[in-house]
């Protein structure tokens, strides 16, 4: 050590450290830039290709008509209204099922469960995320579908509800893990203050802990929606893919992702049909972007409040 110090002057050591610092900064910056570039690239690819479609299809028809039949005998039709409704229906229903359940599970894990129980349950839930979507879809066909058909006396189980239940199962792990981390991050002193005022565990959870973890819980919800809205294989297998606009959860629906997956394989390059699939992708992208921004805004507001 001593020997070393006598060889290199403090000035050069300083210089080297400075250089290392700069190199590291550059590296991290490049990584950040790369992800932004990839995002921008995808966005422009979708918009650019989707834009061509509007040479032949009016914006009004695309968004507000529910007649989708690009391979029609006479007049091809490019209305995605029905799919947007279908996608929203399945997603919202999935969140209605998964969000309360996920938050309750997260609260249980962080506030109630013994460390042993938590060590057992949490990995189990995380394991749920590892089930491939094809497998979940298969379960939808052979288990959930027939069960729904029997329970609600339907002719068949290829319904929006089937898709929603499966998506709820798939979204649960991301909701639980993020929400639990948020709840655990609430300082102990908050809870202690509440107990000191005489509240019981339930009141503390509802009035103090959950509101304090609000921004994290919103983030958990957004992650869940993201998982549900973009899922393809599961809904493709389980919801029946009928093109009609659904009247209820017991109707068959075809989501935007399913349409892209079904039709991408057969569509010739450079046709209006081809570009319209990109336009669907762009629409889906913008939808999830808007949703994320709203959630971001809400989370920020929450942070200021608490």
């Amino acid at each position, binding site marked *: 050590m001593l020997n070393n110090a006598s060889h290199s002057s403090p000035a050069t050591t300083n210089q080297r450290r400075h250089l290392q610092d700069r190199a590291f900064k550059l590296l991290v910056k490049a990584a950040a830039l790369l992800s932004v570039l990839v995002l921008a690239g995808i966005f422009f690819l979708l918009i650019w290709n989707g834009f061509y479609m509007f040479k032949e299809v009016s914006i009004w028809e695309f968004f507000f008509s529910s007649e989708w039949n690009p391979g029609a005998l006479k007049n091809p039709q490019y209305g995605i209204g029905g799919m947007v409704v279908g996608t929203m229906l399945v997603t919202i229903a999935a969140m209605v099922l998964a969000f309360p359940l996920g938050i309750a599970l997260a609260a249980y894990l962080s506030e109630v469960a013994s460390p042993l129980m938590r060590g057992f349950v949490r990995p189990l839930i995380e394991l749920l995320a590892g089930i491939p979507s094809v497998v979940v879809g298969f379960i939808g066909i052979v288990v959930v579908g027939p069960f729904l058909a029997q329970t609600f006396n339907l*002719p*068949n189980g*290829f319904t929006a509800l089937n898709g929603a239940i499966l998506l709820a199962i798939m979204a649960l792990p991301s909701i639980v893990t993020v929400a639990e981390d948020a709840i655990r991050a609430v300082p102990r002193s908050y809870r202690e203050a509440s107990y000191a005022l005489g509240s019981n565990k339930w009141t503390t959870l509802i009035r103090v802990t959950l509101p304090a973890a609000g921004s994290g819980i919103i983030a958990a919800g957004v992650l869940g929606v993201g998982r549900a809205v973009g899922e393809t294989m599961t809904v*493709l297998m389980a919801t029946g893919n*009928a*093109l009609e606009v659904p009247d209820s959860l017991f109707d068959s629906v075809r989501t935007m992702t399913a349409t892209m997956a079904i039709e991408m394989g057969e569509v010739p390059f450079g046709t209006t049909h081809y570009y319209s699939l990109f336009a669907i992708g762009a629409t889906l992208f913008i939808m999830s972007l808007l949703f994320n921004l709203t959630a971001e805004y809400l989370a920020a507001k929450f942070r200021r409040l608490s």
Partner: protein
Amino acid sequence: MVRLFILFLFMFGLPACRPVQTIEQVQIKGSDSEVAVVMALAESFMSHEHRVSVSVKGGGSGSGIAALLNGKTDIANSSRDMSAKELEMAAVRNIRPIPVVFAEDVLVFILHPSLQIRALNLEQLAGIYRGDIRNWKEVGGPDREISLYGRQSNSGTYVYLREKVLKSEYSSKVKGMNGTAQIVEAVKQDRGGIGYVSLGYVQHNGKPSAGISVLRIGDGEGVSPLDASAVASGLYPLKRPLYHFLNGPASGKLAAFLRFERSEQGKAIIRESGYIPIELPLTYNAEVSSMAQPVYAK
């Protein structure tokens, strides 16, 4: 020392593992109506010919033709003709699609057995799939809503039926299943279900599979698709050619495979799978002109 040994292994050991003769690959992709029978043919073919590997994939006629146009398959299986648009694209991409009809398929409608309907005519079926007829009581069945099952738009069967029977667009209530097998399973479970599939999927040695009823077509008693003589004479209306589309004339193993399909053994496999073999010999060029002309004449 160990390193030296590994080096030796790489230099002398691994090349010895490589087969001396190269295996010729044949890729086949497309129609779901054809995938099972072509797979059976390919397996039998490979048990005779050792230096060839034939891979058969489904995905729908449209996907097969798209793969041929993109140069990703040697044979596109298709249960429909190529469309004018697809032929145009082939010309642009310097691909010469040649159709070979290797078998004929009988298209059948299947129903849930509890419906107790024996026969419907094509008008009624068109009405049902167009969505004009919505309840089974309108065609002599029980008071029960009709559940329509069909294929997705990349299916040749979907396109064939739309042209030959519906002559119009499908109802938006038709559920787009992921393949023929899924239609059969869904109709078995749905008390108001109707679906369309290739005969090969619902019969074994001339008897229909359990759990579904195969619809007779026509007025009154109608004609059963299980009646081989009625199908052969054309009395049963829904018989269609099954195509292989090649890129240019076949040679080598590809030609050998096509010849195998015409052999007695090949024909037996086609018959066992529920399809009708082609009795014309495969005189390759003659067939291209005789079979191809009507296709392109459109």
